């Protein structure tokens, strides 16, 4: 494990969880402060719609 990673775990964690809320909940249960950011893949992960959206973004 790199030194930086080890240093990270020796400090107080500051976590922003993006997407799946259960990850944040697990940390909260361990009394770790978490900011939850709602995020879902575009069009709920539908590849065809995501590709259309991509072509229509400006």
């Amino acid at each position, binding site marked *: 494990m790199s030194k930086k990673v080890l240093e990270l775990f020796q400090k107080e964690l500051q976590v922003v969880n993006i997407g799946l809320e259960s990850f944040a909940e697990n940390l909260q249960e361990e009394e770790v402060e978490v900011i939850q950011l709602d995020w879902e893949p575009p*069009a709920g992960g539908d590849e065809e*719609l995501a590709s259309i*959206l991509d072509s229509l973004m*400006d």
Partner: protein
Amino acid sequence: MVSIKEANQEAVAIMQKSEPVLVDMGIAGEVLPGMTEKTILHAGPPVEWEDMCGPMRGAVIGALIYEGLADNEEEAVELAGSGEIDFAPCHHYQAVGPMAGVTSASMPVYVVENKEHGNQAFCTVNEGLGKVLRYGAYAEEVIEKLKWIEKTLAPAFKKALDLIESGINIKNMTSQALHMGDECHNRNKAGTALFIREITPYLLKAGVEPQVVSEIVEFMGENEHFYLNISMAACKATMDAAHGIEGSTIITAMARNGVEFGIRISGLGDQWFTGPAQVIDGLFFPGYSTEDANPDIGDSTISETAAIGGFAMAAAPAIVGFVGGTPEDAVKFTKSMYEISVAENETFTIPSMNFRGTATGIDVRKVVETGILPAINTGIAHKDPGVGQVGAGLVDPPKECFEDAIRAFAKEYKG
């Protein structure tokens, strides 16, 4: 291809600058372009007689009797199915109608003019609660009330409006109503009160008989949704002006016919994109349940399209219980609408949110991208003709209509 961003900014700028003003009362057959004696308009996207839901069929029967084209239910049903009647969406005739939305040639309509853009929009007069045509009732008392609106109320309004040189600015009135606890779709108490306050002196000044003024004021006062039809016409005048902008993905109409929910997109001409109308999640009046509910119906979703109604839910804490939520839910709903819109309204603001402007200009791309559907407040109609309203609540539109719209948009503009 044109820039979608710029096209949307143009469409939204038109919405922001629109000045819908009530200028006159007209007769549908005389003022709606293309309307004939055999035209029957209805709410939502196109639907033929055979496919109409109960309340809409009832309203069509009532309209045919009201017009003198049929003497009774049996004759009306025969005529409706004969192919002689042209059924068309109100939206195709610069009009909107709540619930069944049925509009026929002799019916009086509000004439709302968008002073900034010069276009007009129309809506019938709200008949009140109980047994009314918009919920599919067609008993004698229903036809009598429609005749009273035609022969008594509308001519009196016309006289009063003749005296108001600049008309009644509906955009300003709606803005005030939002500051008085209405969201102007499911709650119209303040809007109705403001309208009564505005029109009554002119009814008197116009020399309308005191007894008639008394009847009209009583009629308006008993119906807390009286303002809805006026507000809807104003929203339609606003959204029609924003329709037809090349390259714009802004939604310019959302409407339901009781079978399908449909949307139109500014840059996609007259095409409708539809999905099944949903059953409303809400509170029911005593004695009624989901079993009794007709799927979502009416053109009143022009309110949300024009940045009020569900998009201003936080302005109306008095009805959040009625629509099955809490004040916190109302703020949450209202805030989530910014995720799918491109601007904040410069006129419609919400006091409890530091006078933040309501989310304005729904971008169909954002709806598909985020999966957040427009929040719609609505009344619930009984599935059988003529029973009336059985509750109110929130409804999600079907997501496939938004998905189909972006597919069509990509095909149109990207080949």
